[in-house]
């Protein structure tokens, strides 16, 4: 058996292990092993590539490995769990950027003379998708990091200009492939620029609250860019892994859209998701019932079942550890405690679950919307901390802004307690009917302080 076949078989093994690794992510019990399997698959693919290719000079390769490895390792170790969306956004961009550079490198390597054959077309595709992914991810990163405004940035003829740029990119690609131009290299460089500009112009009109959709979509693009790079260099393992990531990103994108009851087109072009320009004059004008920590402790401590609904406000206040203590104390008193997590509770898919896992909440107590919605009507009390739109009964009324958005049916429980700083509106910028309902209590205050007060009061119940 010659060396090349061995290399090809190693690539095949690597592709199989990527699928096996992802499959293990189907349960929290096997997920960590799955991730290690995928990492090993990556290692195999790298070894196979190094063996199979004649490396002219090792120095640049080692420089790249060491720099990238150090940055990646330090970032992975230091990043806060609340900052995961930014980090994934940034890493997506690097993946897309690397794929684009592979395509650019191929084009430059042959001095622009690729012709209109398969590899030429795939180089253009890889460059374009990779370029858009790179700059789009950088904008998403800046928005999530709040280094630039989370509000949608719009200007006249935005969609038209994007459409013109897209057509321009297709024309430039044809010209770069040698369709009647003296200087394909120049056309190619302009194409790279257009791709980078388009990543920016496609991302800035999307509001901060819609960023979970955007990073999922960019995740999908980074996979497609890797697949395109696979077509460029004729490597199956790239095509396969890229396709897996592309599918994963697309599924998450659709789930996030469903969680907000929005179409992908509406997210991408709707310039929604900011909080500007909404009439707030009526908010907080209706009477509510409020309660202090002692009353809330009594409401929760003497019942059979409690469901806790955490929202992103909880993570902002860094109160997840105190909340977990509340849950533990209630369980010690014999109360059945569950956590209900809405698909868009955090800033990226599954974000809230990670934050609760970090606070050491057992994962078998975490329930998603479909699993738990029927339970609310048999539940004594629901404690809502820092969540807002995701439990607003207004979503059931067709005429309201958030109509049709899937919500947690918390109002069906016998008692609801909303822990919140004030009556101010959430991301959707609308009032929450739940606050004014008869069986609801408002527990006003800072989440962290209120939760530690609650811990003390539950201990005092005796």
């Amino acid at each position, binding site marked *: 058996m010659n060396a090349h076949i061995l290399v090809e078989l190693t690539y095949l093994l690597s592709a199989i292990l990527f699928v096996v690794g992802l499959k293990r*992510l189907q349960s929290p019990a096997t997920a960590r092993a799955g991730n290690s399997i995928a990492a090993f698959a990556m290692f195999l693919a790298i070894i196979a590539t190094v063996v199979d290719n*004649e490396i002219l000079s090792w120095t640049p390769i080692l420089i790249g490995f060491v720099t990238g490895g150090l940055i990646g390792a330090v*970032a992975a170790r230091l990043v806060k769990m609340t900052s995961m969306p930014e*980090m994934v956004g940034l890493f997506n961009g690097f993946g897309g950027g*690397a794929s684009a*550079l*592979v395509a650019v490198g191929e084009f430059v390597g042959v001095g622009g003379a690729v012709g209109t054959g398969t590899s030429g077309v795939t180089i253009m595709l890889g460059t374009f998708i990779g370029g858009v992914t790179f700059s789009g991810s950088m904008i998403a990163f800046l928005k999530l990091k709040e280094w630039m405004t989370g509000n949608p940035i719009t200007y006249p003829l935005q969609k038209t200009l994007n459409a013109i740029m897209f057509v321009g990119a297709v024309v430039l690609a044809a010209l770069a492939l040698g369709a009647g131009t003296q200087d394909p290299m120049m056309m190619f460089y302009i194409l790279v620029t257009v791709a980078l500009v388009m990543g920016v112009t496609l991302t800035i009109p999307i509001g901060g609250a819609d960023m979970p959709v955007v990073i999922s979509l960019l995740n999908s693009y980074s996979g497609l860019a890797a697949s395109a790079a696979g077509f460029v260099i004729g490597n199956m393992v790239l095509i396969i892994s890229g*396709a897996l990531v592309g599918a*994963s990103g697309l599924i998450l994108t659709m*789930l996030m859209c469903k969680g907000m009851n929005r179409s992908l087109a509406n997210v991408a072009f709707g310039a929604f998701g900011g909080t500007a320009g909404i009439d707030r004059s009526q908010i907080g004008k209706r009477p509510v019932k409020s309660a202090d920590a002692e009353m809330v402790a009594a409401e929760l401590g003497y019942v059979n079942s409690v469901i806790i609904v955490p929202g992103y406000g909880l993570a902002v206040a860094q109160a997840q550890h105190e909340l977990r203590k509340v849950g533990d104390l209630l369980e010690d008193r014999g109360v059945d405690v569950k956590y209900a997590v809405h698909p868009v509770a955090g800033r990226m898919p599954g974000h809230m679950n990670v934050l609760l896992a970090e606070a050491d909440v057992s994962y078998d107590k975490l329930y998603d919307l479909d699993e738990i919605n029927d339970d609310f009507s048999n539940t004594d009390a629901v404690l809502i901390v820092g969540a807002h739109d995701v439990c607003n009964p207004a979503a059931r009324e067709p005429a309201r802004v958030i109509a049709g958005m899937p919500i947690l049916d918390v109002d069906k429980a016998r008692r609801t307690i909303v822990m919140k700083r004030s009556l101010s509106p959430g991301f959707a910028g609308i009032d929450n009917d739940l606050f004014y309902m008869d069986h609801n209590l408002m527990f006003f205050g800072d989440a962290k302080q209120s939760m530690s007060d609650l811990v003390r009061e539950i201990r005092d119940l005796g």
Partner: protein
Amino acid sequence: MGELMIGLYVFVLATLAGREVITKVPPTLHTPLMSGANAISGIAIVGALVVAGRAEGTTQTVLGVVAIAMATINVIGGFMVTDRMLGMFRKH
């Protein structure tokens, strides 16, 4: 069948396999899924190695080094942070 067609078959079938596997990932693990998938998209490192390995001019060498560095950040950072997150998921 040309190389492009074979590639397309592989791409489509891998997408379908990915869909089957990933729709069954529970929402609890969607963040680790995304960061893990992100690490996998660092497979572009294979392409970066090919470009850097056969680079002759300065331009190509620089492109190759930057591509390798970016892809390595993605791979190392992605797998490590996913492992860190999954280590937090405990049952008790």
